[in-house]
């Protein structure tokens, strides 16, 4: 009886304490900046790389660092990570280091003083040797370095070599050649173009918008459009959809019904012939299929427009409220090194490219070709959400999936898109 009373009392006291704690921290709108985490304990590394191979590679990386310092890896499903990121960064006790993207996405947080300034890390000999483009990409609008890039990958029209050989077709170089190829493939009963903008991956459709826009209007216009300096109902944007309409009949009819993972399975099984996708899809592909995968450059539409490619960079940033400043710097210097990047590439599908000039890529023919592909580009773009913001992405998802289903309604689609985007820019 005494025992039960004690435990009851304890429970009540505990509940009261928990309640008070929640009351104190419950004020969601208050931005407390005073509380810092203690500098004891390991650095926490929050990762959104949840595909099996990428996750395993991250574990290898962390295991390698543990010889030097303490770090805890916490892998969170990509979608949860994305929606939670603002909460992580604004919480009083945030994780220290995060996998994320440089450019406008990181700068949005940097402008709100949520990112740790990394100028000190960038003085390391490794980062000093990074390309000038990467230096610029990782610098916030206030001139501070806020990001450490580690790998990048490229987007292209991926296909299976054996299937192209079986169908007797070869990769095209220009738009007309591309339309001919689609015709030929369709006549063989194959869906020429897989998409994968169904399920939870509607954003894949943005790759088509990005590429058509950078091929028709150029990378400069594209970035300005995504920054709100042009309108989505401008004649330039209409031109993008005019071209898209020409290839729309060749898209797999289930393009907006299945997620990209299912669409890549269809590609690997030969039910669809090619797909505009980034190399990350290989992280979930069987290893034995990797040797059979090849890609070609998204066809040139207007030779006068400087050649641009989408080559999103991945890496890390850290929370401004991290209490592990020195340990975070140490971890980031390690991640920026050639050795760490090689460990990651070895453990993952190995189709990404390292940012460190000395780090060896996996050296497969696909990767060699990919590296050349990016190097030949006059301009590099990141991706729709990375060149604009995560908040703008849903407006593109709605507009583009609607266009694919109802191309004739393009006028109202673009009007709506502009209206929705304006709300985001104005927020």
């Amino acid at each position, binding site marked *: 009886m005494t025992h039960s009373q004690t435990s009851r009392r304890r429970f*009540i006291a505990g*509940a*009261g304490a928990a*309640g*008070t704690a*929640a*009351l104190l921290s*419950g*004020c*969601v*709108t208050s*931005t407390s900046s005073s509380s810092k985490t203690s500098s004891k304990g390991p650095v926490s590394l929050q990762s959104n790389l949840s595909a099996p191979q990428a996750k395993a590679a991250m574990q290898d990386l962390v295991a390698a660092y543990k010889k030097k310092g303490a770090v805890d890896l916490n892998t969170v499903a990509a979608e949860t990570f994305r*929606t939670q990121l*603002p*909460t992580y*960064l*604004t919480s009083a006790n945030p994780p220290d280091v995060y996998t994320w993207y440089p450019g406008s996405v990181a700068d949005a*947080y940097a402008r*709100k003083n*949520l990112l740790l300034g990394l100028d000190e890390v960038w003085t390391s000999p490794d980062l000093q040797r990074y390309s000038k483009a990467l230096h610029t990409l990782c610098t916030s609008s206030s001139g501070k370095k806020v990001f450490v890039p580690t790998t990048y990958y490229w987007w292209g029209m991926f296909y299976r070599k054996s299937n192209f050989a079986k169908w007797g077709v070869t990769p095209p170089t220009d738009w007309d050649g591309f339309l001919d190829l689609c015709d030929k493939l369709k006549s063989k009963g194959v869906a020429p173009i897989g998409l994968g903008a*169904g*399920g*939870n991956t*509607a954003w894949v459709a943005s790759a088509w918008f990005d590429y058509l826009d950078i091929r028709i209007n150029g990378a400069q216009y594209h970035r300005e459009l995504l920054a709100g300096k042009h309108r989505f109902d401008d004649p330039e944007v209409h031109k993008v959809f005019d071209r898209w309409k020409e290839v729309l009949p060749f898209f797999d*009819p*289930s393009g*907006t*019904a*299945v997620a990209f993972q*299912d669409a890549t399975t269809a590609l690997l099984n030969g039910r669809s012939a090619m797909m505009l996708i980034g190399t990350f899809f290989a992280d979930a592909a069987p290893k034995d299929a990797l040797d059979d995968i090849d890609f070609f450059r998204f066809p040139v539409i207007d030779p006068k427009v400087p050649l641009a490619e989408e080559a999103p960079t991945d890496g890390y940033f850290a929370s401004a409220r991290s209490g592990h400043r020195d340990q975070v710097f140490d971890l980031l210097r390690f991640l920026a090194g050639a050795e760490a990047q090689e460990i990651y590439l070895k453990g993952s599908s190995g189709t990404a490219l390292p940012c460190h000039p000395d780090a060896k890529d996996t050296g497969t023919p696909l990767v060699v070709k990919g590296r050349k592909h990016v190097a030949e580009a006059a301009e590099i773009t990141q991706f729709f959400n990375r060149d604009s913001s*995560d*908040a703008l*992405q*849903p*407006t593109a*998802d*709605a*507009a583009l*999936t*609607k266009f694919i*289903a109802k191309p004739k309604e393009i006028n109202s689609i673009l009007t*709506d898109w502009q209206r929705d985007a304006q*709300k*985001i820019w104005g*927020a």
Partner: protein
Amino acid sequence: MAVLTTAARKTTPVPTPPRGRRAGGPRRTPPLVLAFVLVPLLAEAVWVFWPALQGFYLALTSWDGVSAPRFVGLANFREMLHDDIFRTAALDTVLWLVLFGGLSALLGLATALLLQQERRGVGFYRAALFLPVVFSLVATALVWQAIYQPDGVLNQLLQAVGLGSLRHAWLADQDTALYAVIVPALWRQIGYVMVLYLAGLKGIDPALYEAAKVDGAGRWQSFRHVTLPQLRGVNAVVLSVIVIDSLRSFDVVWSLTRGGPYHSSELLSTYMYSTAFQSLRLGYGSALAVVIFLLAFGVIASYLVRAFREAD
């Protein structure tokens, strides 16, 4: 009692005890009992009332979730008046309320009537119908997603029975997405409503049916004049449950379509979530949450007030 009180007043000159306090009862609430009331109240205040109040405040602001919220008054609600997607979501929510709510009540009642009698094997059917309630809706949604895939079970079935022309990308077509999403939600809800009605049916006095039989009532008449009036109490519960469940329906829609394609299966709840956490417009999202709250509160309160008035 009144007589006794009057008598007591006459015989004792001391002032009357305050009304409602029993003469022989405990004069003081024991602290433990008080704690049992106050601690849950505190928890409720911290985890429910406080966030709810904050939600009301946020509805009057423009907030991106990172910077400090900016007070904008009723601008969010004004914007709602001209927001096509809000209109779509509100209409879809009404449609959802009618279809999901109506069908789950009707089918729940029908299955309860069918399975109320104790026959051999009836337990199996009851358990089978109740089973979907046990699964998480997100898991349920994953299974149904596989069923609805372009080369999924449903399309294969249609092909096999010669209805190949009906094959469809069920979740990717704006004409079918909402209905395709209602089916798994219904599949789960019917078992729940059935159990509520089964309990209600068990509580009806069999003598009433016997009396009806003696009066020459047929099956329909005894259902109409005995069963239905006796279920009035359960109906109030079922209505509350389905209104609340309809307005908070989110998980199954989000897992299957995310309110798409292009907002065709958008409910107020999914629109609220995507506005708040995808587009990072938390002020507008909170305003939507306030609307949802007022709708739920309005529907339930007006029904309960009417129900109580009838009971009087």
